[in-house]
């Protein structure tokens, strides 16, 4: 009988792995469904997209009139990312806070008792919404700028264009994750939005020119991912720093979520 123990153990382990994968898949599906049925998510994405396209058109129109430097359509089209990040911050906050508005978190945890699985699924679902939204925002911004600028646009190489768009998309998605993590700890929408927007739009830009450590903050470091001006770090380092901030924030929010009463 001892000879049969090992295969049985392996079978059991494989079964447990399959069950774990199924649990993760189901959790992700549930989180994604919840996210996609929130009207606030759709309104935020639509509003962000509309504002980004309008800003890209305005920047391009101003650029064409100014005509000083032949700005590339890519740089002009990605410039609204600086404002569009607000939409992705709100997206992350809305996704995280929707659980706490009523008592939904208790239903969620009754259905998915493993908190780490549910937290991971929440982040993955947020990424699955944020990345396509960011692609649409960035690509349509660049396309609008290209249309408005027409022949006046400086050419951008295909490789650089792909890298810049990928950087912008990555930055927006990682920012949404960071915002979701912060909001998961704060659990209330208005304070989370106020704190995040206050950092990204007021404290961050003010510190940028005045303190050396600001280069390592997520907003300034993120400039290196998408902005033509850059943030003092190279693109690879910028990706690393912003991803590290988002991962650290997600880890903190996971630790808090696992320990705190729902």
């Amino acid at each position, binding site marked *: 009988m001892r000879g049969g123990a090992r295969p049985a153990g392996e079978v059991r382990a494989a079964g447990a792995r399959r069950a774990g994968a199924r649990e993760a898949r189901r959790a992700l599906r549930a989180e994604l469904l919840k996210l996609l049925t929130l009207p606030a998510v759709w309104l935020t994405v639509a509003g962000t997209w509309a504002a980004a396209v309008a*800003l890209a058109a*305005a920047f391009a*129109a*101003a650029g064409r009139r100014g005509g000083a430097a032949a700005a590339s359509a890519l740089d002009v089209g990605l410039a609204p990312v600086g*404002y569009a990040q*607000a*939409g992705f911050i*709100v997206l992350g*906050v*809305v996704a995280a806070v929707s659980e706490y*508005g*009523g*008592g939904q978190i208790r239903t969620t945890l009754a259905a998915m008792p493993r908190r780490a699985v549910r937290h991971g699924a929440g982040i993955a679902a947020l990424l699955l919404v944020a990345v396509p939204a960011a692609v649409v925002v960035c690509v349509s911004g660049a396309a609008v700028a290209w249309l408005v600028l027409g022949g006046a646009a400086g050419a951008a190489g295909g490789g650089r264009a792909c890298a810049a768009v990928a950087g912008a998309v990555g930055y927006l998605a990682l920012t949404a994750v960071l915002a979701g993590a912060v909001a998961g700890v704060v659990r209330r*929408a*208005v*304070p989370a*939005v*106020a*704190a995040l*927007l*206050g950092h990204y*739009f*007021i*404290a961050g*830009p*003010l*510190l940028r020119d*005045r*303190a050396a450590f600001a280069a390592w903050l997520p907003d300034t470091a993120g400039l290196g991912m998408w902005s033509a001006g850059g943030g003092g770090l190279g693109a690879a380092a910028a990706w690393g720093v912003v991803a590290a901030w988002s991962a650290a924030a997600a880890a903190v929010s996971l630790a808090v979520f696992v320990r705190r009463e729902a």
Partner: protein
Amino acid sequence: MRLLRAELSKLVSLPSVWTAFAVGLLVPSVIAYLNASSMRGRNAQAAGLDVGFEELGFGVIAAIILGVVAVSSEYATEGEESAGGRQITASLTAAPSRGGFLLAKIGAVALAAAVMSAVATAATLGAVAFALADAAPPMGEEVPRMLGVVVYWVLTALLASAITLLTRNGIVPLAVLILNTSVVSVTFLLSKVTPLASYLPDMAGARMITSRIHSSVEMPPVVGGLVMAAWVAALLAVGAAVFLRRDA
């Protein structure tokens, strides 16, 4: 008077208001201190005239949070435990006269914003004076500008309240107003497209604080303040009309 006391007590018991106060105190004073220390060696007299005031212009985020939260907290649902109740139903039960309630609310917001801005102005200019030591610009002639900061903060808080009266939700006005306080604000970009944008409330109101606005339209500080006040009055009138008529 009792209504005003009630509104003030509600404001003072909101954690977000105290956070806003801390932000409004720390952000301008710390950044002004960093800024002033970095220019100590150089020609501080010439460069230092706007130090502090510029930062106070960004510290107005505290007034924005205050104005938004004062109204949005009335409409936030309190969850299933309290039957999805909202504070506004309790407030209007206690103070059935909506006009009186709204006046008290506006008064409390204005008062709180005035106190916040006065403390923040004192702290920020104190930090600048401390950082620049004897090179600090004389403060005596800056009194009108200090008043300008207070008026700007109070009007911004009321503007935020007026918009939140319409949206009943804090996120939209917060996002719009904070975005527009950023270093390169949307209205500033707009003023490059059309000179009319210089008459938008924040562009006009900023004249009370800083002289360095690159715009095609010249406006003395008092006129800027009046333009901003007109905007706020108009928005408050719309907000009040909606508040008086709409189901709570």
